[in-house]
Every structure is written in structure tokens, then in C-alpha cells.
């Protein structure tokens, strides 16, 4: 069962005060701790490796799956493989997320490999939140890998947030889109101290009228470093847009590299990247409304990452 630390982590990553409604699997310190399945959603433990298969029957609507992970044991490192099989015409929400509390001196890490197989015309909203805390010197590390396969007409909305406490992260997201499929990604990252975050997106737009929109907003403070890369391949009449917008502060370092390849005359691909400090006039405007410089800065950063 969860202790206070675990409960707090669960609240941070999944906004849960109690067990969620619907299907769920809560993983605590490397073990599956609580599980619930429904008539339409089955959760099966993998036999060959650590992880679960989440199988959602076709036509399942308005249901949710929560699969939060909590690590509070210092020095625990794990790689977990979760596969989602979403049937045709589903409309579901999946909430994942990982919270690490490390009060020891050893590295704690969770590497989640999530694969999504989304059936025809299904809709998935996937929310993933990463959070770390604890006063120990041990690093808190998360390396999520997300692999997305969207069949004809399928759509997926991915919201990934990493606002505090993760020392090192390499996030890799790949997507393959069939005809008429749509992928929307919103990523929010804040790094502080000496943290390092790498985010790599690759989307292959293989079907006619497929589309994807990847928007990353990040803030790098102190001496932290960030790297964002996005690779779009337009192999059919399609539209793809990626945008990386970063606020850089203190002695941080941010890099962004787009890579667009079109192999069809009707592929339309756009990349936008902007890196810059908070504009002086933004601070001044909020200061003329009574905020101190520091309050203004906090307000701008929190709004940007909202």
C-alpha cells in the first residue's frame, strides 16, 4: 500500500487523491500495487519482461486508464514496457506519469517504454506527467520512450509535462501515421540547477491527409541544459507543424534542431523555433501593475508552462 510519500507522488503525477474510477494499474517501487480492470479494458502483466499490456475493446467510449508509477526507494532503477492496444472507434483517456522521491545518494531511475497501437478512427488522449522530489544527492532520472502507431483516421493527443525535480531525461517519441490520422503533441519542460533534458520527436506521415502538430514550450533556468529535435517526414499529401519555444534564463543552454523531409509534392511541413530570454518590456508591464520583478518573472514562466 502507499505511504504518505507515495500518496503525494501520486497526487503530483496523476492528480489522484484516491483510487481512480475506471481501469488502473499503480506501480510502486517496481511492483504492481493496485489494479482494476473493466468490462472493456483489460490489463495483463507481461510474462517475458517487466510491464503490462493494456487492451481496450473496440467501440469503448468515455473510459479512462490510469497507470501511474511511484518510486520512493533510493537506488531503484527499472525499465518498464507498457503496450496499449486501442480498438477501433474508441474514445478514451490514458493518464500515465511517474513520480520519483529520492532521499538517498544513489541514482533512482525509471525508463518507461510505451507503445500505442491505435485502431481505425479511435481517439486517444494521453497525459503524462513526470515529477521528482527528495533532498538526497542521488539523481532522479527518467527516460520515456513513446512509440505511436495510428491507423486510418485515428487521432491522439499527447500532453507531456515535466515541471520539476528530474535531473536527467531523454525523451524519445516516434509516431507513424496512416491516412487521415492526426497527432497533437504538447510538451512542457522546466529545468533548473544542473538538470539536463533531451527531447526527440520523429513523425512519419505516411498516409494521405495525415497531420501532426508538435508544440514544445520549455524554460531553462540556472545551469540547466536542454536539447529539442524534431524530425518530420512527409511521405504523402499531409501537413506537419513543429514548434519549439524556449525561455532561457541565468546560465542555461538550449538548442533546437529541426529536420524536415518531404517526399511528396503535396506534403506541407513547417518548423518554428524560438529561444530567448523574458522580454524586458514583459517584466516592466507586470511591474506597472504592482508585481515585483521576481513575481513578474514567476508569473510569466508559470503562464508559459501552463
Amino acid at each position, binding site marked *: 500500500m502507499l505511504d504518505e510519500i507515495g500518496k503525494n507522488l501520486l497526487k503530483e503525477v496523476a492528480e489522484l487523491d484516491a483510487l481512480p474510477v475506471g481501469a488502473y494499474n499503480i506501480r510502486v517501487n517496481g511492483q504492481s500495487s493496485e489494479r482494476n480492470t473493466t468490462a472493456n479494458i483489460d490489463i495483463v502483466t507481461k510474462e517475458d519482461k517487466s510491464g503490462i499490456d493494456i487492451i481496450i475493446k473496440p467501440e469503448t467510449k468515455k473510459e479512462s486508464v490510469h497507470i501511474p508509477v511511484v518510486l520512493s526507494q533510493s537506488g531503484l532503477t527499472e525499465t518498464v514496457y507498457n503496450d496499449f492496444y486501442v480498438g477501433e472507434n474508441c474514445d478514451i483517456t490514458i493518464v500515465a506519469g511517474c513520480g520519483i522521491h529520492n532521499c538517498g545518494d544513489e541514482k533512482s531511475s525509471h525508463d518507461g517504454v510505451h507503445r500505442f497501437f491505435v485502431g481505425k478512427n479511435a481517439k486517444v488522449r494521453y497525459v503524462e506527467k513526470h515529477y521528482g522530489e527528495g533532498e538526497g544527492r542521488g539523481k532522479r532520472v527518467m527516460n520515456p520512450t513513446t512509440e505511436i502507431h495510428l491507423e486510418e483516421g485515428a487521432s491522439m493527443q499527447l500532453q507531456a509535462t515535466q515541471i520539476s525535480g528530474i535531473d536527467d531525461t531523454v525523451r524519445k517519441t516516434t509516431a507513424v501515421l496512416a491516412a487521415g490520422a492526426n497527432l497533437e503533441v504538447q510538451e512542457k519542460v522546466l529545468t533548473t540547477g544542473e538538470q539536463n533534458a533531451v527531447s526527440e520527436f520523429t513523425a512519419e506521415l505516411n498516409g494521405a491527409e495525415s497531420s501532426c502538430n508538435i508544440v514544445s*514550450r520549455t524554460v531553462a533556468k540556472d545551469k540547466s541544459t536542454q536539447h529539442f529535435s524534431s524530425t518530420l517526414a512527409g511521405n504523402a499529401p499531409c501537413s506537419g507543424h513543429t514548434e519549439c*519555444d524556449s525561455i532561457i534564463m541565468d546560465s542555461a543552454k538550449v538548442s533546437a534542431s529541426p529536420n524536415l523531409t518531404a517526399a511528396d509534392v503535396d506534403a506541407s511541413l513547417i518548423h518554428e523555433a524560438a529561444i530567448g530570454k523574458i*522580454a524586458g*518590456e*514583459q517584466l*516592466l*508591464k*507586470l*511591474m*506597472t*501593475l*504592482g*508585481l*515585483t*520583478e521576481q513575481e513578474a518573472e514567476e*508569473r*510569466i514562466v*508559470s*503562464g*508559459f*508552462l*501552463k
Partner: protein
Amino acid sequence: MGYQVEDGEEKEILRDVSLKIDDNIVVITGPNGGGKSTLAKVIAGLVKPTEGKIFLDGTDITDYSVTERAKAGISLAFQQPVRFKGLSVRDLITIAAGKDISVNEACKYLSEVGLCAKDYIDRELNASLSGGEMKRIEIASVLARGAKFAVFDEPEAGIDLWSFKSLIHVFEKMRSEHNGTVLIISHQERILNIADKIIYIKDGLVERYGTKEEILPTLMDASREGCDILMDKMED
């Protein structure tokens, strides 16, 4: 009070400006580049005068920061409103009001500037808003602030579609409901017409300061001065 900058050579932006502003509506006018916006920035604390002092209700605020001046009751509507990715109209009005406000309360300020709160309250202050919309929101933020000394830097600029009448109405309403001072930088005769007093600034100097009745006729004459070639062209 004066303000100088060094840009290769010393340049005086404002010199020997000595004013007592205590009327309801005071309008600053004068040619472009004359120092009007700089004076507004000096009052709000965005730039610090290189000589002289500024008082608010008898208190020396020369060394007050922008924040301290805002808390003391000075507010500034920027000539070029600032855009923020991630902050909504609601956020800005809430910050300005200094407390959480309901849609109804926000509606009070936004409707004054001709915007429907329902349509705008959750809009982000980003590039999706037009210059005119940003300008109206900027004015609404200063209304929400309720400052006793509110400065508006060219409020008419960019609000082409919003009738001028509504803007005038905003200031007239401020005059009747609010005991403080509204200082407006403007080139517009219709705004000059609602002034109690007019300040005419040219080349960093206050050339004239007096009641509307005293100053307005002289401005009409002044507009006929200047470059002969330009005047001839205008008459053609």
C-alpha cells in the same frame, strides 16, 4: 526635472520640465520625438530622470521602483501593448485588479473598451490578437487597476474600428467616477477637447501649459508653422 542619454554625444530628451499636475484630465501633446512618451515613462518609473525630482501627493517618489510607484497609485497604459505567450486576458486583468475577479467583474472593464468578456477572457495575449484588440485590453487593464494617477500613452493609436466616441466615453467616465488624475498623451483634437489642462511639449521642453481654452487655439496656429515646402504641399 530632466533626462539625458549618451549616444555618442550627450542628448537631452527632457529638460527643465517643471509641472504640477492636479486636474482631472490632463493631455500632453506636441510633435513626435518631443519627449512625451519619455515623460510618461519617467512618471511610471520605467526611466529614471538624470536630474530633478518627482512627487506624488507630496511624497518624493524619484527613487521608487516601477513596482513601488504602481503600489503608490501610478499606472501606465503602454503605447505598444506587450504580448505574453501563456498569459490570458483574465490573468492580466486579475494581476491589474490585484485580486481574483469573476467574469462579471472582468466584463465591467472589458465592455468599457468594447470587448465582450465571454469572447475574450480566456484568450491568450499572443499574436492571435490584433493590435487594436491588444490596445483595448491594455486600456482595460489600467481601468481594472483603478490607480489614482493613470497615464495613457497614445490610447487612440490602432483602435481604428472601435469608435472614437467609446474611447472618449472611457475618459469621461473616469473623470466622473474617479477622483484622481488621468494623464493622456495624444495628438487627437477630440481628446484635447475633453482636457481640463493641456501640456505642449516640444524638443524636450514644456512650451506651454494651461487650460484647454488657453492652449487649444495656440495649437491650431502652431500647426500652420514649420517647413514652408511641406506647408505649401499640404495647402495644395
